[in-house]
């Protein structure tokens, strides 16, 4: 089991993405990096920024940081640890999470709204990382 929102988790996530044929196919034209942000809360003393650089169906770089100035990604999606956990455990549809504003997304909405399949496959990749969450 790998603790969520750590460098080790980011590396494992990158590995799963790069092994996924389904993601590679769905995101073959995608260009854009993300900060997936775990908001501060219980067990999370300060926000954690998971940087994931997605490029043409592959992940070029992934790591965790508490310093948001390290990168300037084109997309930023933030939510509480509880909601990230619910997505990874497939208990919360991320699109519903966005529609109910349990997640906030900043970036080029036109681009992201046209990449439903890639987003779905990316979420599928998270479920393949054997994840443990801070209790």
């Amino acid at each position, binding site marked *: 089991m790998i603790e969520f929102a750590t460098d080790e988790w980011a590396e494992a996530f990158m590995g799963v993405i790069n092994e996924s044929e*389904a993601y590679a*196919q*769905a995101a073959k034209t995608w260009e854009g990096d993300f900060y997936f942000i775990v908001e501060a809360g219980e067990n999370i003393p300060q926000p954690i920024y998971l940087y994931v650089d997605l490029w043409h169906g592959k992940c070029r770089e992934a790591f965790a940081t508490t310093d948001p100035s390290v990168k300037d990604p084109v997309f930023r999606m933030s939510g509480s640890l509880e909601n990230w956990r619910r997505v990874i455990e497939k208990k919360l*549809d991320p*699109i*519903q999470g*966005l*529609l*109910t*504003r*349990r997640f*906030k*997304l900043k970036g080029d*909405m*036109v681009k992201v*709204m*046209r*990449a*439903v*399949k890639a987003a*779905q496959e990316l979420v599928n990749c998270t479920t393949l990382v054997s994840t443990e969450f801070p209790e």
Partner: protein
Amino acid sequence: MWYFNSPEIVFGEGALAHLEEIEGRRALIVSDENLAALGFVRTVQEHLAKAGMESGVFSQVEPDPSLETVVRGAQAMADYEPDWIVGLGGGSCMDAAKAMWVLYERPDIRPEAINPVEILGLRQKARLITVPTTAGTGAEVTWAIVLSDTQEERKLALGSRENMADIAIVEPGLSKGMPPRLTADTGLDALTHALEGYASTWANDFSDGLCLKATELIFRYLPRAYRDGSDEEAREKMANAATLAGLGFGNSMAGLAHSMGHALGGVFHTPHGRAVGLFLPYTIEYAARENPGRYAQIARYLSLPAQTETEGAGSLVRAIRELLERLEQPMSLREVGIEREALQERMDKLIENAENEATTVVHPRIPTTEELETLFLYAYGGKEIDF
């Protein structure tokens, strides 16, 4: 958590007279040239005049309205400065009105960027009334906006909860003059909303009853409205059913028939209701091979044979196909008039479009790329789903 969104709904014979109760200064009616020529726009203007309101008209909405049309309409709004907008027509006019309204309020936004995630802050300049003249789209009570990106040959599913109409006026008399083909096409759109809204993985206690009641009404009254357009009871029940179905799927989601229908419409310009109605039995058959439960519930509600879930789903598919036959609808893409070579040539685009519709990922069974291609091919040949 989830939301249930609805405008105030005024319905039944004479509902259009509610326009005389509206308080405001100036309204812009968004419609099309046919409805203007038929006098519908004039009728709405007369009601508004009784409310002491001035009115103007933008009647250049085409079927499957383009992003460019929306920009032009928003400019017309900016010039006229209405405090009410009236979307009058089928889904194209009402969706165009919603999008133009967003741009009128927020000129900094591009139409293709209207999304449900960001706060728009509407209703600073105007409010929206929707008046359907068909019985199918449900756009009068949904916040969804479907626009065509003509350059990319793709229909864009846009919208924000904020762009839901304030008032929907469902006047059954407005659909009396619809020709049989349009009655069938739009009615099948409503049926697809009802069935997909019930089967969607986002279905909920608030949407379920609406979808079931709409389904019952459509099976009973659509053939009557198709056969005899002057059947007032059938017209009224279909008008109500379309709005109920809109409320149902608008608060859950549509499914794969919509994804494939939008994809087809974006490339081959098949009328929306005809396309989704055609794909409906195929996509139910496909989903029911893994998840027949929700379809069986619908079958039981309709008193169709459903001793088992599989039998129930099969009964529902048969009932849909029988309805399509009674409405003299095409049962396959070949019957729609699409050449096999053309289909094969545009297959990658069709798949890409369908895969990237949000309605695909809420279908009870999500197809792989290969399965989606096979679904298109089976729908071309009219072949029963066996995978």
